[in-house]
């Protein structure tokens, strides 16, 4: 029974970290793509969207190749910092992060592109620095669109299975998240555990989705 709650708290921890990291990286990427005039920006956009289209197991395999103990990056991390991402919850965060990344940067890019450049110019002639303009004009106006993306990313990270299983495995209490625990429970015939896990996951996901749609609705109302 209590193992279900351990899996839930682990899932929330992993999804929370993945969302927090995406808040910074996804918003920065979205802002960059919205503002840059680089010719390769649409190609970059497509490349960064790949994690949404590719099968998570393939993504997990790539990650294993990239950060596994035998890889250049993986052995460097281990030799210099003693960090190993394989079979750890941090590895699960990395997997969730990458899978959910497009769900943050794409709406962020769209939200930034909607902000009228004239409002930023108005800030400029009123004497504000570029940093102040970002935090006082651009970000507040794009914020609801970004938040909706973050909620979806959180839900996606919560449900992450394939890539996480490949890189972090399924160690109960350490890397066994909710969605992996459901699979294990069904495999070993523990129906009551599976029922509970499924119920918890559904409630969390529905809450997240309802919040996301409520946010995007009030966003539209404010713009009108």
């Amino acid at each position, binding site marked *: 029974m209590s193992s279900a709650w351990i899996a839930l708290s682990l899932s929330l921890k992993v999804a929370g970290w993945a969302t927090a990291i995406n808040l910074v990286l996804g918003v920065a990427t979205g802002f960059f793509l919205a503002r840059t005039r680089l010719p390769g920006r649409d190609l970059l956009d497509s490349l960064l969207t790949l994690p949404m289209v590719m099968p998570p197991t393939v993504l997990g395999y790539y990650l294993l190749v990239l950060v596994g103990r035998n890889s250049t990056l993986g052995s460097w991390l281990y030799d210099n910092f003693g960090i190993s991402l394989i079979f750890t919850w941090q590895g699960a965060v990395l997997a969730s992060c990458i899978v959910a990344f497009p769900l943050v940067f794409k709406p962020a890019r769209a939200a930034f592109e909607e902000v009228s450049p004239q409002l930023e110019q108005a800030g*400029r002639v009123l004497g504000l620095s570029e*940093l102040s303009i970002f935090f006082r004009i651009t970000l507040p106006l794009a914020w609801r669109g970004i938040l909706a993306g973050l909620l979806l990313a959180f839900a996606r990270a919560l449900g992450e299975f394939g890539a996480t299983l490949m890189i972090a495995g399924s160690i109960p209490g350490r890397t066994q998240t909710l969605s992996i625990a459901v699979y294990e429970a069904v495999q070993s015939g523990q129906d009551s555990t599976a029922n509970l896990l499924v119920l918890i996951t559904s409630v969390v996901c529905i809450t997240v989705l309802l919040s996301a749609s409520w946010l995007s609705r009030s966003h539209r109302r404010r*713009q*009108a």
Partner: protein
Amino acid sequence: MIELQLEKTLTSPRRRFQLQLGFTCSDQRLLVYGPSGSGKSLLLQLLGGLQTPDSGYIRLAGRTLFDADHKINLPARQRRIAYLFQDYALFPHLTARQNIAFGLRRGLLNPGRNICSQAVDQWLERFSLQDAQHLYPYQLSGGQRQRTALARALIMEPAAVLLDEPFSALDPPLRQHMREQLATLQSQLNIPMIMISHDPVDLEFFAAAVVHIENGQLAGIDNGIPI
């Protein structure tokens, strides 16, 4: 009051536009007059620091804002110029009061809804906006919006005011009223105002000096000297 000579070429895949102007004028009220697409708005953006000329110089109200030969180019935020955008560019996420107080507050945070400021109170009173101060821009009438935008710009005690077709978004009766209010304001504040317009009424009513622009070139000047 203003002395400038500048050149700016804009290129897009579809068209190439060149603005090439030089004039000097000592009147406090200057109207830049010309058909749409003549380069009026571009001129205003160059004055305000929102675009950079390719060459030339700009001197306004006793200060050099731009001089290509001496590598001077004050950024928009240091020009101390009030800029009234055609559709006002009020911040939609802030109330009228917060919009007016916007430039007074430095740093990364916006002024709060109830920010205390004598200057804000004075401008609200001057423009009869007290009752509307806690409304958001979309809740304001056209005239209130314009007065909020003006107050937001003038509270910074600018050295000059630039107005981009300030009356085009208003209905005719209100238009005349705002014309009068603006003219009064100019004589009270006694700072240079440069307005762009394609409305002949503004020629008679507002202007002391007029610069006519056509297709990016100076087509005529009243009360000024071409350079």
